[in-house]
């Protein structure tokens, strides 16, 4: 393969590069040191002409490895897009000229920096291979939907409409889920005035009559294995029958379990049948079917009803839900209208602390209820007492700041949603918890979510890292509420609806559409051998040298996506389609046997080696910066655009994720005379920003022991610094590098220079 490589170097002299730098010298470096077979300069490389020049070399000269020395690798991505070619980018614009002052005394160091970036770009591309699709999967146009509620049915319909087949597995005897019990739903179209039909029956009939959709009720997923494009699933039916199917992707729409109101004795739940939850009220409303709603105890027509918002929610009390379920305020408004519709004189009071009506109908629907004379009182309910056929609701009026009470016939508790999800693969085992209690130690890991009542597995995955989707918080299976909706931490398996985050049925239907699109995308990408989010389109995947593997299992444990299983011989089994290409396995491997075609220990290691390290007496230190290409690297680019100065001694190498950083890069660089190393990854805590969820956290854990390495080398521990950098840190990121330059200035140059 190495013999087939033909290298072409291209230097852009536009955007001021030509004026600020000696590009002829850069060309010579690319040819002599960088060993490019040919090197050309162009005044505007990203123009149609410039791109054509490169394309001509690819077509006519057989160039298949291209080094472009121009702007940052994050700029002009569309222009410099050459399929089936290995490509590296030397960042001369943002990395050099824009982040260095244009003065005579800086000319020398600026040129040196550019020289090094060209050397690094050449070194990188020399060790790159052209990624080839794995060919492990074919296009499998069949999506499995776990859960036959509104979310699941909508997802199946979306999938079918896109020309794919869908199979719904529903554990109950009927489709519809909780929404099937609901009397009327919040309107979804203007005017948002009256509750409307839930349309669940319509949804069910559309699903049942769709020839692309297969429905299994009274069924569950007994086992699932494989990867996107080739999920192999065993569906067990109550009848004892088992079916096997192959699916391209999976959508988990397992919904929610209603919060158990028996945890709320203070609201007299369970003591009197006249205190009901919002879901139970739907049943009463269905029974009344437009007639007067009667209270369960004695059948009296309800003349006064109180809605207690946030019942057992948004509270840190034991057994309560710490979060807001999001749907209950609008639901209570809707239910108050049930009473008003039938009897305008009925006293309906909504006792709330913060009324939140998310979604399109929200504010208008709230107003409509106010017009119908539903009373909204800002009050915190402390107790409900049942006495003499009446209910007394004691609350603190938060506007008038006084304790007061009201009497009514019926109390509705606005209780929340508990996710119906499987056990968290990363939950601390029970024994460990006991130990913690005894030892009095507090672990950094999040405690097992108390609200997760379901311990029964939903997906029964045969993955090395557990049977179900990892929880994000409170048992919900998402990987980031804001940045990557529907994405879970298992590639090709998407979560939709209230198992992802609490929501109402309208949001669940939107969610279903989103997850269906994601599932189809995953299926197609798997067939093409490409990665999905966040490195969508990446063809490279991890490979390993089996001879070198010591079966230490770090890769299988550290993979944030559970992509790596073990084969019968206990070697890692990289399921390419399950991989997100972050490289955390590569960074974890102590024997450096894992690599990607275009990203490996060498592509970075050789860049580090390629840098010219001047001797100790030159007073020109070298600082290696390993920056996450998702956040820290663009932050540095943006800093350069804003004219922030970055130390002339720094040499920045972008990495796929800080998790992919191999400790060998750090020891090698220190051994070869670098004076400092700065590592920049993403935020790693509960509110993490790492695109690969756990990559940055893994890196921080590994690097926490780097101090020992430094001490062994007899180096100051300050020479290596690890930071969490956000994409918005355009002032701080350069400052961190400049701080390292200052530190090196104080503690002196590295003694390892030759």
């Amino acid at each position, binding site marked *: 393969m190495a013999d087939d490589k033909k290298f072409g170097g291209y230097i852009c002299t536009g955007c001021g590069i030509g004026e600020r730098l000696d590009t002829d010298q850069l060309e010579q470096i690319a040819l002599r040191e960088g060993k490019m077979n040919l090197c050309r300069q162009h005044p505007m490389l990203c123009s149609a002409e410039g791109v054509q020049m490169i394309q001509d070399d690819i077509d006519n000269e057989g160039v298949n490895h291209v080094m472009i020395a121009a702007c940052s690798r994050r700029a002009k991505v569309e222009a410099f897009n050459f399929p089936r070619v290995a490509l590296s980018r030397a960042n001369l614009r943002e990395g050099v000229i824009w982040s260095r002052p244009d003065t005579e005394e800086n000319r020398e160091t600026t040129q040196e920096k550019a020289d090094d970036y060209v050397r690094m770009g050449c070194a990188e591309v020399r060790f790159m291979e052209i990624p080839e699709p794995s060919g492990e999967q074919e296009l499998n146009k069949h999506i499995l939907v776990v859960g036959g509620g509104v979310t699941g049915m909508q997802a199946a319909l979306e999938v079918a409409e896109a020309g794919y087949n869908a199979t719904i597995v529903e554990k109950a005897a009927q489709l519809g889920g909780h929404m099937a019990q609901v009397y009327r739903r919040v309107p979804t179209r203007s005017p948002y005035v009256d509750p409307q039909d839930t349309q669940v029956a319509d949804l069910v009939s559309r699903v049942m009559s769709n020839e692309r959709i297969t429905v299994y009720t009274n069924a569950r997923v007994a086992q699932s294995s494989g990867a996107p494009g080739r999920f192999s699933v065993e569906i067990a039916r109550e009848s004892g029958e088992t079916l096997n199917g192959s699916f391209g992707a999976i959508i988990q729409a397992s919904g929610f379990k209603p919060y158990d109101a028996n945890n709320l004795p203070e609201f007299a739940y369970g003591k009197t049948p006249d205190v009901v939850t919002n879901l139970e009220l739907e049943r009463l409303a269905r029974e009344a079917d437009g007639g007067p709603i009667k209270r369960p105890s004695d059948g009296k027509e309800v003349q006064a009803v109180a809605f207690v918002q946030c019942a057992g929610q948004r509270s840190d009390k034991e057994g309560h839900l710490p979060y807001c379920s999001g749907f209950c305020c609008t639901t209570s408004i809707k239910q108050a209208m049930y009473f008003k519709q039938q009897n305008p004189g009925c006293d309906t009071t909504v006792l709330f602390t913060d009324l939140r009506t998310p979604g399109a109908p929200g504010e208008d629907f709230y107003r409509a209820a106010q017009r119908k004379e539903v*009373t909204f009182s800002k009050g915190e309910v402390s107790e409900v007492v049942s006495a003499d056929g009446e209910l007394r609701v004691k609350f603190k009026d938060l506007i008038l700041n006084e304790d007061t009470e009201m009497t009514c016939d019926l109390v509705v508790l606005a209780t929340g949603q508990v996710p119906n999800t499987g056990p968290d693969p990363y939950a601390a085992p029970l024994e460990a918890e006991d130990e913690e209690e005894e030892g009095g130690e507090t672990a950094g890991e999040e405690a097992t979510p108390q609200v997760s009542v379901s311990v029964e597995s939903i997906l029964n995955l045969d993955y090395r890292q557990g049977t179900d989707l990892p929880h994000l918080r409170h048992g919900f299976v998402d990987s980031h509420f804001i940045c990557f909706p529907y994405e879970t931490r298992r590639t090709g398996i998407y979560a939709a609806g209230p198992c992802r985050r609490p929501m109402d049925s309208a949001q669940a239907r939107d969610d279903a559409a989103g997850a269906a699109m994601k599932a189809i995308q995953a299926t197609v990408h798997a067939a093409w051998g490409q990665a999905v989010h966040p490195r969508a389109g990446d063809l490279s995947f991890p490979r390993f040298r089996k001879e070198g593997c010591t079966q230490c299992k770090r890769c299988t444990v550290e993979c944030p996506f559970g992509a790596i299983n073990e084969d019968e011989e206990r070697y890692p089994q990289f399921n390419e389609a399950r991989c997100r290409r972050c490289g955390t396995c590569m960074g974890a491997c102590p024997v450096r046997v894992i690599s990607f075609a275009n990203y490996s220990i060498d592509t970075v290691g050789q860049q580090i080696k390629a840098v010219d390290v001047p001797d100790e007496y030159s007073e020109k230190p070298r600082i290696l910066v390993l920056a996450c290409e998702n956040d820290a690297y663009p932050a540095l680019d943006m800093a350069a655009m804003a004219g922030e100065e970055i130390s002339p001694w720094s040499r920045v190498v972008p990495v796929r994720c800080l998790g992919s950083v191999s400790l060998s890069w750090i020891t090698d660089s220190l051994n070869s005379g670098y004076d400092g190393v700065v590592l920049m990854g993403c935020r790693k805590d509960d509110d993490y920003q790492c695109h690969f969820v756990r990559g940055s956290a893994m890196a921080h854990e590994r690097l926490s022991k780097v101090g020992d390495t430094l001490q062994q080398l007899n180096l100051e521990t300050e020479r290596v610094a690890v930071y969490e950098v956000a994409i918005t840190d355009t002032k701080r990121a350069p400052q961190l590098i400049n701080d390292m330059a200052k530190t090196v200035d104080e503690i002196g140059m590295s003694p390892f220079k030759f």
Partner: protein
Amino acid sequence: MSELNQQMIEQYRTRFLQEVEANVEEGEWVKMCMQCGVCSGSCPLGKHWAHPPQEIFMMIRAGKREEVLTSDSMWMCTSCYNCIVRCPRGLPITHIMHGLATYAKRLGLAPKNQPTAKFAQLFWDNLVKKGRVNELKLGLSLYFMNGFGEGIKVAMKQQAIGLGMLRTKRMNPMEVVGGHAVKDLDGFHKMIRKAQELEDARIKQNAG
């Protein structure tokens, strides 16, 4: 307490919100308040109010009839319209405050010796006589609002201003006897009487 007040209590019992809606000018807006508190925060005199508008609305919904109607809060409103401009729900808060004050006065519940209430009465009485405000008479009646001795004192204090206005023909001393009226004074009086009749009929009907 007036007889009308007793009738209203009988009529509405605990449904004070409905009473306000039916009898107070712009009262139908009270139910639309969403308790954000922007009105209270915007009121330049808010800190002098026992109950700022947000609280008044809450008290109405909570059925605190006596407390609301005997309160002097709505009498503190200076009609600056800050609250109306800022209310996200578009409630005509200033008008509601005046409406509540008027209704309280009609029921005989308005606080005694409330200066704004007194001024409002003087202004009204002055206005309806000739269909226009007689500034000289209104000024004088304000001086003597709190008794003869104090009236003299205030008048002496304002002497220089008064003389200045006379000199620049800003004030006609002859207005003190009679004063001039609107063109069709009879018509004006008829109009006021008719309006009063309509209003009384409405309230009477509401009182059952």
